[in-house]
């Protein structure tokens, strides 16, 4: 036990700093420059998960952070290891995931000499981290680690990288020894994130909310980061406001709730997309007007006033200028809105939304998410996901890769709890799901964790099933195997005249069952819809080993609805079985009636 003032070497101080920052789990991979720091890991209570590729360490840390709200921790060496974590750092930056990444670096005198396994890690990662730093003195290590955790977890969360040269953690170096301390105060004069919104912005927001006739709560990942699901439920119910949850916010509001419209955006459902288009007020809550949500920005929610709530001042006005800008933490903002609303008359003081709600439920009835349920001889991915959701525990955590399977999982899984959906939204990183599932399971060992994956994705990071087996992290993988890079194939079908260029993976290589078994997993193959329930039930029974199910799904199934990239959300394409009905409605002008009436009114 090292006490303050006791002599300590840099390596021990690094691990001791992680302990002081309450780290329980870290994901990593040793190597030359970080070697000294791996020695004290043997004596530490922190659980180290040895991944098979550094990229997986990063995504596992992200999965852990998403599932628990605690920062994910990565430890890797210099050079190629640092470049291998570039992808997860960028992923964490775009999805605001709290993460601390420690990279080894060549010894200080070797920096700048093109030494073995040297790269300019802080230079390379500058634009994809919230902050990074190169530590140059052993005695700065505790401060650097304390600051890293503070910056990563406060304000808008994000990844922070600490680059540690080998000589300052080498016990053989007399300069690597110093008197241990753990900082109680940080010196960050330029970093004081503002959590509490101004009272005037809250009052202005509540005024717009009270008078809106067709409001929509456009909820993004910021609500989850702020632990704001409860406040959201209260705000939505008190103001009788329908809610859309973006890809990063699935689960922030229960899908089973009558006010829930589901996911908007490029592959959102018709009602969620169209509600935004016809709203007179959008309450953007921790969302950032991403292009996958807005489509053509100029045509996005053309009749809506905007209340934008976000902790990051730079998000306000970045894409769409808000009418009321509420800078602060989403949970605090929503709680204050509720207080303010109570002061001005409570739910009674909010305009009546009965007509709006009934318009929306009319659309929900007419244009629900759908697929060809009668198709015979083909295993539909949507069916697999519906059954998987039905047969798995209510609080199952679902991770996904990127592509068609990701969209289907978001669409067809009913998310009723926050922190049950973990995916790569901003960066769109293929191969995310398996390592993210490892991290989620490490953080929530009592929960069932299903990685929904595609065959292309699984070939990128499938080797991490070895980590799952060896480290005893019993995750489950539902491989939606259509033998294609399905989303790319879909775009080539729709926009490149069915000219399929470099998207076919073939059914037979690898043999996913054999491959998974060789990595220590229990593996199944399902080709017949009738086998689905039985195999899922078996998979859910297995809790001591990882499981992989190779679902051989329909090869050319498409994701609908779809807003073509750069197109207006008004031109959303729905399932082929609904499209002619929608075309007829559009021709009759039936769907735009509300908005036109509203704009006429405002002209008067």
């Amino acid at each position: 036990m090292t006490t303050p003032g006791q002599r300590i070497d840099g390596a021990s101080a690094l691990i001791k700093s992680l302990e002081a920052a309450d780290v329980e789990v870290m994901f990593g991979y040793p190597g030359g420059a970080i070697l000294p720091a791996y020695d004290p890991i043997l004596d530490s209570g922190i659980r180290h998960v040895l991944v098979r590729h550094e990229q997986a360490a990063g995504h596992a840390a992200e999965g852990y952070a998403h599932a628990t709200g605690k920062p994910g921790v990565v430890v890797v060496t210099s050079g190629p290891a640092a470049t291998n974590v570039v992808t997860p750092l960028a992923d964490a930056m775009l999805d605001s995931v709290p993460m601390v990444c420690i990279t080894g670096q060549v010894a200080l005198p070797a920096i700048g000499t093109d030494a073995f396994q040297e790269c300019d890690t802080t230079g390379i990662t500058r634009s994809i981290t919230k902050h990074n730093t190169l530590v140059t003195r052993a005695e700065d290590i505790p401060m650097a680690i304390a600051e890293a955790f503070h910056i990563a977890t406060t304000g808008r969360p994000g990844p922070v990288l600490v680059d540690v040269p080998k000589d300052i953690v080498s016990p053989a170096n007399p300069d690597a020894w110093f008197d241990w301390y753990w900082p109680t105060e940080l010196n960050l004069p330029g970093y004081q994130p503002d959590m509490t919104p101004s009272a005037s912005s809250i009052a202005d927001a509540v005024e717009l909310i009270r008078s809106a006739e067709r409001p929509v709560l456009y909820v993004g990942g910021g609500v989850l980061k702020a632990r704001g699901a409860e406040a959201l439920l209260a705000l939505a119910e008190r103001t009788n406001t329908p809610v859309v949850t973006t890809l990063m916010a699935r689960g922030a509001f229960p899908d089973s709730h009558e006010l829930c419209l589901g996911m908007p955006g490029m592959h959102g459902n018709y009602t969620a997309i169209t509600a935004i288009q016809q709203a007179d007020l959008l309450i953007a809550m921790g969302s950032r007007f991403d292009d996958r949500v807005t489509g053509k920005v100029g045509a996005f929610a053309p009749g809506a006033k905007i209340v934008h709530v976000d902790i990051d001042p730079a998000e306000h006005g970045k894409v769409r200028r808000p009418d009321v800008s509420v800078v602060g933490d989403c949970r605090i903002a929503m709680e204050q809105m509720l207080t303010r609303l109570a002061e001005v008359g409570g739910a009674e003081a909010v305009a009546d939304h009965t007509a709006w709600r009934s318009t929306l439920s009319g659309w929900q009835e007419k244009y629900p998410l759908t697929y060809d349920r009668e198709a015979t001889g083909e295993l539909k991915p949507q069916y697999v996901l519906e059954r998987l959701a039905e047969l798995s525990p209510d609080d199952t955590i679902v991770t996904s890769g990127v592509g068609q399977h990701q969209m289907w999982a978001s669409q067809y899984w009913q998310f009723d709890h926050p922190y049950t959906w973990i995916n790569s939204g901003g960066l769109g990183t293929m191969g995310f799901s398996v390592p993210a599932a490892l991290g989620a399971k490490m953080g929530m060992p009592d929960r069932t964790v299903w990685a929904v994956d595609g065959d292309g994705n699984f070939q990128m990071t499938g080797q991490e099933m070895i980590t799952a087996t060896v480290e005893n992290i019993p995750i489950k993988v539902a491989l939606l195997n259509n033998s294609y890079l399905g989303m790319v194939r879909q775009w080539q079908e729709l926009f490149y005249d069915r000219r399929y260029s470099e998207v076919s993976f073939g059914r037979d290589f690898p043999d996913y069952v054999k491959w998974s078994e060789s990595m220590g997993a229990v593996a199944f193959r399902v080709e017949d819809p009738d086998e689905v329930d039985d195999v899922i039930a078996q998979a859910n029974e297995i809790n001591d080993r990882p499981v992989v199910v190779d679902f051989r799904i329909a090869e050319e199934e498409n994701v609908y609805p779809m807003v073509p990239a750069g197109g207006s959300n008004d031109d959303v394409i729905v399932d082929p079985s609904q499209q002619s009905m929608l075309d007829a409605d559009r021709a009759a002008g039936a769907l735009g009636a509300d908005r036109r009436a509203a704009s006429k009114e405002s002209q008067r």
Partner: protein
Amino acid sequence: MNRPGTMSSHTIAVLVENKAGVLARVADLFARRGYNIVSLNVAPTTDPTMSRFTIVVDAESAPIEQIVKQLFKLINVVEIAQLGPPDVVERELILATVEAPQESRSQVLELVDIFKGRILAVSTGKLTVSMEGTPDKVNDFEALLSDYGIVEVQRSGVMALPKVGRPVPRLRAGSAEPTV
């Protein structure tokens, strides 16, 4: 290219922690967000732990408000002051080597004298001169020199301070609203 002092540029003074790599962080932010820098100046302040940038930005490349907010996301940025023309004193230094053969040399010397510039080096047929003034003055001086043929020119970029007694809006870390 915009010259400092023209209508479409903004001048901001950015107080940063004087730490390794801070210049790279600022430059990198401008590069990756597509903001154009017209000129950039940096030096330590009286507090050796702090440095101040004076940056003239091309306001047509992005709204100044967004540039300021993005700068503030850098952990080392402590304070940003937006310096509008009526509230600040601005100065810029220009060094120029100009063609000055026998027949036009006296005219160049006269021009330098009118602008209260100085002669720094003399050779057969060429003069190196300096002049310090507001960015507008420097623009005029450079334009007039160019009639004689500029061989090489180096401008310092704008440095600026708020006028004494003129409060300028300063945005500090930790407050969403500007304080004066």
